């Protein structure tokens, strides 16, 4: 189990967190922060203040309840379920009418399925060289412009466009024979 915390599998990180390893905790939060955030704001459409409270509640519960997780390899579904419960509780706390909460939940399952798939794509992204990871993350996930990326990286905008295209092709190839459960994920 040597190496950087970010290179460890979910199960290895969970085991280390349970043993009180602070670096493993930081890596676990980093790895799943986008997923939890996306469930809060896209899956359950929480407003910024509620989303922040829910996000912190989720990680507080992870910290408190990690000892109850029976199978460390099942961390992801456990986290998704925990996040779902926290978001539903928050929605219910803020609404008088149960029906309006049910309306919000109606299409959350589809969004959560998409987010699970997005997490798998990020697993694939983590397998790419650093320059591809950075450029794809900046452009697609952080919504930065060609201009902003080219200014920061000191490359012409045309080069940015071709590099994005090349890196996307590489990611596609990685995903085609990808077994996410066996690999460290989600940076």
């Amino acid at each position, binding site marked *: 189990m040597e190496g950087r915390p970010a290179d460890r599998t979910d199960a290895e990180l969970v085991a280390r967190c349970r043993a009180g390893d602070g670096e493993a905790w930081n890596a676990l939060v980093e790895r799943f922060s*986008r997923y939890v955030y996306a469930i809060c704001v896209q899956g359950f459409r929480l407003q910024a203040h509620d989303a922040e409270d829910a996000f912190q509640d989720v990680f507080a519960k992870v910290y408190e309840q990690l000892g109850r997780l029976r199978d460390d390899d099942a961390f992801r579904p456990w986290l998704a379920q925990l996040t779902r419960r926290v978001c539903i509780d928050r929605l219910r706390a803020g609404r008088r009418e149960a029906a309006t909460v049910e309306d919000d939940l109606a299409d959350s399952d589809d969004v959560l399925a998409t987010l699970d798939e997005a997490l798998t794509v990020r697993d694939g992204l983590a397998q790419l060289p650093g320059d591809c990871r950075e450029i794809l993350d900046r452009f697609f996930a*952080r919504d930065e412009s060609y201009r902003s990326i080219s200014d920061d990286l000191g490359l012409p905008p045309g080069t940015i466009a071709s590099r994005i295209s090349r890196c*996307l092709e590489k990611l596609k190839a990685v995903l085609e024979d990808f077994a996410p459960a066996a690999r460290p994920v989600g940076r």
Partner: protein
Amino acid sequence: MSRDLDTIARLLGALPPPPEGWVEAAQELPRVRQALDSLLEQAEADAELRARLIADLEGALTEVGIAPTPRVVELVRRRLS
């Protein structure tokens, strides 16, 4: 599962980073919890400290190096009551 490039691009965009500071706050959680546990343990044995915590919770937290965020203040109030 085979995905086309548009789908991969869309899925990359589905997981933007949380706003500034959220991740760091969650990463601080174990340290804050340990500091709070220690403070509250002391307060159980020290009536003066307990009185100070009740009178000026935010000030007392700051003194021991814990940022008195609304979430932390609420947690301590719950545990003191």
